[in-house]
């Protein structure tokens, strides 16, 4: 197992204020006073920086506890809204915004339930957070596909789109297994990876079948 990624001292105290579940040794009242008095810009910037750090961790996956310890659902929400807006189409064959939204969240819930039932010691929201963040490579693939779709379509372009989506799909699955890997017992990893694979497969299928 790879080493845990350690941030600098400065980052540690910043991160611990915003999202950490247990903070041993820090009094509650101090926390509330110090974050209530600061200007709104500081709060927003701190949260944005946290979200950005998590995206970075997904795009360069190493085994790290950042996503698990300081979970938040902003990243998944941003990704979900972005993808649903891009995938929405006016013709009847295209999915609606609501459809993509529901598939995303219900899919994350089902995969999380499965992981918990298989005996994983991970909380519900941590798992939804990780699954949501790991859709980021697929969102990148979707943007690339959308750019490619501007040109006139040929078979070669379709193959290029297909390859990009496959790459995004493989990257997403690999990233999520890097984070959820040590939650399960060694030999049962396949059991919890398979539904994640199916979930990302369905999302990739939505992306690749989006033709205008």
């Amino acid at each position, binding site marked *: 197992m790879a080493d845990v990624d350690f941030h600098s001292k400065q980052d540690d105290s910043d991160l611990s*204020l*915003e*999202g950490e*579940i*247990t903070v041993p040794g820090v009094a*509650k009242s101090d*926390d*509330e006073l110090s*974050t*209530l008095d600061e200007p709104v810009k500081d*709060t927003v910037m701190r*949260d944005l920086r946290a979200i950005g750090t998590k995206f970075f961790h997904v795009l360069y996956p190493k085994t790290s506890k950042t996503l698990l310890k300081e979970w*938040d659902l*902003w990243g998944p929400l941003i990704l979900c809204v972005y993808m649903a807006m891009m995938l929405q189409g006016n013709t*009847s*064959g295209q*999915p*609606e915004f609501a*459809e993509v939204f*529901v*598939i995303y969240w219900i899919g994350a819930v089902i995969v999380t*339930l*499965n992981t*918990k*039932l*298989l*005996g994983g*010691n991970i*909380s*519900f929201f941590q798992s939804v957070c990780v699954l949501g963040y790991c859709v980021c490579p697929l969102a990148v693939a979707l943007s690339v596909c959308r750019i490619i779709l501007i040109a006139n379509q040929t078979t070669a372009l379709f193959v290029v789109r297909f390859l990009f989506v496959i790459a995004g799909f493989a990257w997403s699955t690999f990233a999520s297994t890097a984070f959820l890997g040590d939650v399960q017992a060694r*030999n*049962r990893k*396949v*059991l919890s990876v*398979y*539904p994640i694979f*199916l979930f990302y*497969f*369905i999302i990739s*299928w939505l992306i690749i*079948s989006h033709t205008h």
Partner: protein
Amino acid sequence: MADQSPWQESSNKMTSSQGSAILDMQLEEMEMMEDDASDNGENGFNEKAMPQKEDNGSAEDMRKRIGQNVGEMVWQVSKQRAQKAWSVYGNIDILRPYFDVEPKEVQKRLIYSLIPQRPTTQRQRVHKELYGPLMVIFTLIALLLFQMKTSDHKVEEGTLMGTAFGVCFIYWFGASGLVWVLSYICGVRIAMLQILSLIGYALFSHCIVLFLGTVIHTSHDHMLFYVTWAVIGGLSTAKMACVVFSRASGKTERIIVIALIAVLHLSFLLYLHFAYHSVVEEISMVLDSKVIPPPIAHEQINQKLERAVDYEKVVPDFTKKVVNMVKPIIPNDTLNKLRPVINDTLKNVIRQAPTMMNKISGHALHMVNKTLEHSETLKVM
């Protein structure tokens, strides 16, 4: 995200306990609310004792207060009952033992769902497991989605995803329920979870058949599908039949249950194939002819040609003309032998005319169309 206090306690519980984290959190909240409410309840009881000593002018007040107290008592009791019911039925830990499998076991059970085991006097073992069947159903849903997209399945109400989900889960629960009821009546000793598990694993054969059907497009007929339907569907049905056979004693009863399982299983596969597979045929037909005609123009021209060409009249006329042309050259008896040959050839040529014309470009088709409108039959040619 900055304010964590109401969630911190519950999150503590989440990370520390292995099990039902969602439930702990909600129970926490309910307990907190209950504590608040029970304080109010006690105050209400104390107040009730006092007004009984006052005179009738405050009878209205008394009635109001009694009403309030009774209302609160009812609320208390029903909330406690609801909490107890939730903690018994909503606890996902009930399902935990049915997910306790190793990957090797799942693999083995998937493969054995296609291999019927000869029934002996000993009861065949059916494992109560829900992971395998659930994964098989999700894979089936993904395959259906894939098929629906390729075949341009239009859904009026709801969505593609919703339809696929609904169909698969309704079949799984519905068929299992029916089989369970019938087994109970017929005295087959098998539990509901075992039936769910059995039917779930048998859907693996459906996944295989649908996957083969999507990947291998056969043109015009469904022979490949029927063969795989009979072979693979038949194998999994036989497996289920053998399990039921080994678990029942009466001959007629066994047959009834086996017949029900076979009918449900095989007809579900037929439904899945034919409901979502229509346009794949047309695509493969077009690819075979290597030309994609403009569909509407093709139909119209075919119809016009058929109307214009009256085979009964035209072919004998043509035959007579050709025979008259060759009469000076060819002797009579050869001519008599040749007559049917000429007849057939002319029929074929005239019948081929539409498809031959299809191979010309659309513009030429249009021109031919116009020509046919003016000249009524091919006699003019």
